[in-house]
């Protein structure tokens, strides 16, 4: 279970990334954030976001029409 959950369902690029960044900033280092999104582009985007910022993408899966990402704040 992630420390915090961000509902980004129905939001389009770049809002899921921008909201996730904001939420991560408020998490302590090592904390985890779960993002729920419906934008299929978010799959590649969260991978790129994590590679560039040094945060750890712990999980990336699909649940029905929802994409779920878990990011650990390490960047």
């Amino acid at each position: 279970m992630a420390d915090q959950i961000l509902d980004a369902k129905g939001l389009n690029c770049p809002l899921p990334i921008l909201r996730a960044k904001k939420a991560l900033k408020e998490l302590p280092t090592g904390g985890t954030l779960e993002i729920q999104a419906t934008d299929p582009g978010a799959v590649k985007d969260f991978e790129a976001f994590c590679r560039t910022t040094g945060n750890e993408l712990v999980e990336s899966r699909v649940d029905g029409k929802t994409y779920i990402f878990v990011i650990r704040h390490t960047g």
Partner: protein
Amino acid sequence: MSSEANAKSMSLIVTKGTLDWAYPPFILATTAAAMGLEVTMFFTFYGLTLLKKKLDLKISTLGNPAMQMPMMGMHMALPNLVSAVPGVDGIATAMMKNLIKKKGVASIEELREMALEADVKMIACQMTMDLFEYTMDDMIEGPALGGAASYIEVATRSDINLYI
């Protein structure tokens, strides 16, 4: 998030002020800032109007020959010629704004606010301000006044330089 010292950087020249063309620079600027880049936007010519306090952005079918709007399950082309019909640009703008809302796309006002919150630096082109008779009172708080030399200085030390 990444350490300030080795942060990458990006500069953008923003030259267009229609609703559709306002998106690419603000999307890229906010996203780059979220990914730890230092971002500078230089607003010149019609792009300068994107810094006005109150935005009333419109799209034009003129000069957008590939524009197609989803309508009743199909895509309708809007050739340059139809922009001569009174009211067509207004209709196209209303359709676009409706789509933006429906598809969960951020408004330009929202993206601009997020850019400022993320410390994106904004430079308003002094020459354009003078040319189109704007003062800083017409503009939002945040942008600095500058010219080509200010932009070039930023560009020489940026990893990414875009002209939109």
